[in-house]
């Protein structure tokens, strides 16, 4: 598949989960393709980084569901901040652990999972739909009933994948990509390089193949597809580019110029612009 093929599978109003974490291993080439499309009114579920920020900046987001939205080395995602401060998006803010629990519930096809996280905090006030549940056992416990966060589609970026959708993660953390895939009706994986199924072994042990094709529906070969977020060990975050991106939140013209230069172009041109074209 290409990024454009993935976008063709999406439609207005969908709930889309995005793997990775902050400014780490985000499927940015697919995000850029969404920005180029006419898609709108998306609900985005993520441990957010520039994926959420760019989708907000481009007006694609109706609602964001997140544990946080951060660029890591730049703690506050500037376009997400604008969206929140201008009130242009609806938000469901969750404790980081609660978000994985909601994905887990969806993956298990149960309507909620109990947890202690959230009790006593503003989470219960700012999410008026959240309920608690009494333990049915004789212990007097009352927990947050974290509702399932079912996704229409999950988008992931892996280091390697085979053409059938098994995905390999060579860094020290695969974050919650497997949960996003299992919580979604359909999952599309971009990867640095497509390998033959017998090619995984040369890259890393079987324990690095974290997502199975049981839970995926299509693969895009996208070298440097996570740029400017990091995709270790293939490449580190492009901090200079991230600063350039961050500066575009100050005025709409700067963002429009950034979008024209880096987003509204074919991916091959993008790779040439960032100096990684082969």
């Amino acid at each position: 598949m290409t990024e454009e093929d993935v976008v063709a599978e999406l439609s207005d109003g969908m709930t889309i989960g995005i793997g990775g974490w902050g400014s780490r291993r985000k499927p940015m080439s697919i995000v850029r393709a969404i920005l180029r499309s006419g898609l709108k009114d998306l609900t985005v579920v993520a441990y957010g980084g520039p994926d959420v920020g760019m989708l907000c900046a481009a007006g694609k987001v109706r609602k964001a569901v997140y544990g946080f939205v951060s660029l890591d080395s730049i703690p506050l995602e500037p376009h997400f901040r604008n969206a929140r401060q201008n009130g242009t998006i609806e938000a469901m803010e969750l404790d980081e652990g609660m978000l994985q629990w909601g994905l887990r519930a969806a993956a298990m096809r149960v309507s909620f999972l109990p947890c202690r996280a959230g009790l006593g905090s503003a989470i219960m006030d700012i999410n008026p739909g959240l309920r608690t549940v009494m333990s049915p056992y004789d212990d007097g416990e009352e927990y947050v009933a974290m509702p399932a966060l079912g996704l229409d589609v999950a988008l992931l970026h892996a280091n390697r994948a085979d053409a059938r959708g098994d995905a390999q993660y060579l860094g020290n953390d695969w974050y919650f990509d497997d949960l996003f895939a299992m919580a979604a009706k359909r999952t599309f994986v971009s990867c640095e390089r497509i390998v033959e199924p017998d090619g995984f072994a040369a890259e890393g042990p079987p324990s690095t193949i974290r997502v199975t094709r049981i839970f995926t529906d299509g693969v895009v070969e996208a070298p440097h597809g996570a740029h400017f977020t990091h995709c270790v060990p293939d490449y580190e975050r492009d901090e200079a580019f991230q600063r350039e991106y961050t500066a575009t939140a100050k005025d709409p013209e700067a963002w429009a110029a950034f979008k024209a230069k880096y987003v509204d172009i074919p991916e091959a041109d993008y790779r040439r612009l960032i100096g990684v074209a082969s």
Partner: protein
Amino acid sequence: MSAATEPTLAEVCVVACAEAWRGDGEILASPIGTIPTLGARLAAMTFEPDLVYTDGDALQLAGPIPVGAAADVPKAVEAWVPFGRMFDIVWSGRRHVMMGATQIDRFGNQNIACIGPWEKPKAQLLGVRGAPGNTVNHPTSYWVPQHTSRVFVERVDCVSGVGYDRAHAAGPSANRFHEIRVVVSNKAVLDFDSPDHSMRIRSLHPGVTVDEVIENTGFPLTVPDAVPTTRLPTAEDLQIIREVLDPDNLRNAEVPV
């Protein structure tokens, strides 16, 4: 002590943060920020040898590395702690986190989420991140590099970390594992060791007066009859901080001399 070994304020704060983990034993210390990170690693290297710490990412370390070390600095890795496992550890209770606080109130409710109404904030900050889950699952401490009445406020805008009054009001399940251990600032160490779990001055950093702390705190504090001075770094503490853990002196960027 000679002038060369006189501790800086940053070094006093590192030791005050280290003391937060005293007695914790074999649990995960999760410090956020330079001074707390130095504190956790110092505690593990001196009086709390079983304490567990990471590189700030997915690797649990068998030996210390300097703060701000490059990603490829050699590390002795004793375990693997990706974020999924980190949440498991949070919910197991075998962790003591030290977070920052944009605002903190008299009962230890902390805000890192936003300033102004959450629905349309004046300033969107970090969001609640892991604070709600941390505070009801295991001990939590806070580090405030600038002790002012803008941080120590009567009422926080968005309760991210849960304080004693709200944990109590939310019921036994919120209360069961809730503990705010200490708040370390650039002026003092504060705790909640008072009858109603409101904030109390535990110790003052050298040269700081009770009045100075009260003036810079936006709510009434409990003040014991005699307030001790915060424990000063030993010669060994200073050697470890200066030569092993922070040779590039990043600590003074967080707490200017």
